[in-house]
């Protein structure tokens, strides 16, 4: 295992310490239990937006803490959901009296830990709402699974909810908007290489030189099926077709197209995929009105890509365009 780290068990805390000194204007870090909050938290009277999950998906979530996006992020160990006490403490630290929205990716661990934290917060008189993100079309049959995973749409939910909260919208409103974003977003990914969890010390799975995993999550777990490596255009179709058919996305609609790198894939290749995805969306009569390209929700150093398509309405676009000032996403400020 070749990684830039000291002890695997110190990785997350040392990275948090790095964030604290790199972005003192943006955020504050607390270590025990571990969480990040925006520098001016709690913001009186504003709904707070909090998310969290295992580490290893950076910049998600810590890189999205700041004005116009997340009030707090709770990082767990690598690929391990944070614990209820972390989430509870962060919830308390950012509650400005208007309640806290928890943005939760749909994984059993995240769901249960956030659930327990929300129960504890409720007992302390803090109102919370949970927005569950489950946008991964690779998981087809939710009856015999833990349900669809939360992947790329998470970033869009966090941005749009964050902006709505910043604009003064109430707890129920922000949560409802977040759910609407989730309902209109669909994602799918594929991996060219596995990643290595620092504690495990070796790759999570093995792939032959011309094999890929299709329908991959973001935790280094194998995907839904193994396939042959093909040209980028063909692989882009392999992701876009199920996405387009699922909502389904209908001609004439406006969409946000988000091509996400899983960590180890160069930007050059992401733009090659973006080009084809854009072409396929256009061929279905969709208008790509907003774009995002880059590694925003990653799986350590895994090479691969995920595509997210969000059918946007006027309100979502307005909140997408609203100022945001975080380590990883910034505009208008």
């Amino acid at each position: 295992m070749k990684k830039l780290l000291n002890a695997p068990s110190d990785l997350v805390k040392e990275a948090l310490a790095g964030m604290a000194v790199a972005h003192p204007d943006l955020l504050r870090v607390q270590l025990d239990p571990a969480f990040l909050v925006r520098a001016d938290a709690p913001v009186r009277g504003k709904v707070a937006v909090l998310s969290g999950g295992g580490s290893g998906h950076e910049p998600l979530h810590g890189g999205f803490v700041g004005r116009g996006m997340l009030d707090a992020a709770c990082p767990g160990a690598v690929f391990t959901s944070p614990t209820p006490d972390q989430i509870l403490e962060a919830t308390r630290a950012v509650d400005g009296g208007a309640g806290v929205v928890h943005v939760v990716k749909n994984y059993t661990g995240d769901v249960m830990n956030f659930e327990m934290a929300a129960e504890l917060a409720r007992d302390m008189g803090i109102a919370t709402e949970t927005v569950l993100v489950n946008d991964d079309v690779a998981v087809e049959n939710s009856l015999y699974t833990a349900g669809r995973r939360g992947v790329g749409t998470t970033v869009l939910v966090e941005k749009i909810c964050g902006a709505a909260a910043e604009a003064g919208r109430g707890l129920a409103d922000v949560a409802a908007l977040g759910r609407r974003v989730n309902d209109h977003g669909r994602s799918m990914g594929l991996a060219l290489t596995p990643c290595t969890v620092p504690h495990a010390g070796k790759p999570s799975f093995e792939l032959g030189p011309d094999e890929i995993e299709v329908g991959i999550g973001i935790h280094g777990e194998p995907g839904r099926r193994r396939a042959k490596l093909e040209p980028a255009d063909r692989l882009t179709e392999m992701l876009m077709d199920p996405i387009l058919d699922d909502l389904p996305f209908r001609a004439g609609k406006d969409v946000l197209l988000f091509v996400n790198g899983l960590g180890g894939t160069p930007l050059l290749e992401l733009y090659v995929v973006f080009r084809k995805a854009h072409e396929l969306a256009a061929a279905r009569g969709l208008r790509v009105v907003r774009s995002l390209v880059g590694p925003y929700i990653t799986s350590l150093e895994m090479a691969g890509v995920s595509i997210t398509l969000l059918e946007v309405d006027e309100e979502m676009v307005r909140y997408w365009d609203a100022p945001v000032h975080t380590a990883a996403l910034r505009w208008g400020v």
Partner: protein
Amino acid sequence: EVLNGDAVVVWIERAAAVIVENEKYLTELDAAIGDSDHGANMARGFSAVRGKLAGQPREDVGAILKTVGMTLLSTVGGASGPLYGTLFLEAAKIAAGKAELDRTAIQQSLAAGLAGIQKRGKAEPLDKTMVDALGPAIQAFEGAAGVTLAEALARAAEAARQGAEATIPLVARKGRASYLGERSAGHQDPGATSMWLLVRSLAEAAAE
């Protein structure tokens, strides 16, 4: 034929030792159908528990179990954290204020723990989870009338082992492994395996 506070502490310390010993093994099981962290999660949690138990008074078994539950809850994370946390917290409710647990109390504690796990995680038997080790263990314990407590717990441990092994052919329907669909068959569930180690430690502690 009872478990007092000392015995419970011995159990947990044995469990901690065996979990730490088997960290790599549990992680390898999780690598096959999950995300390669179950060993690290459990080792982190039980190491923390070990530290917490050092200063713990032994009079109230419920209090000991509560400490274990709270510590697991705040250190394990992932899916197994809330579930193992719930197991001990629910057991602690039954054991609250008791200096020792007799067979009935033990059985009620385990049953309450299982019920808590199933309420939180919504897993049914044969969903390929830790339930498939704990469920059979409780049944075996209940069924072991007319033998010593140690023997009853040894039978429970053996049932847990068989239950864990019996997850191999199953297709997962809960937790992260369920995303693999058919590809999850052929691998032993990591959580069922750690549950077996936990029950085995209990049997060993009772046999001492």
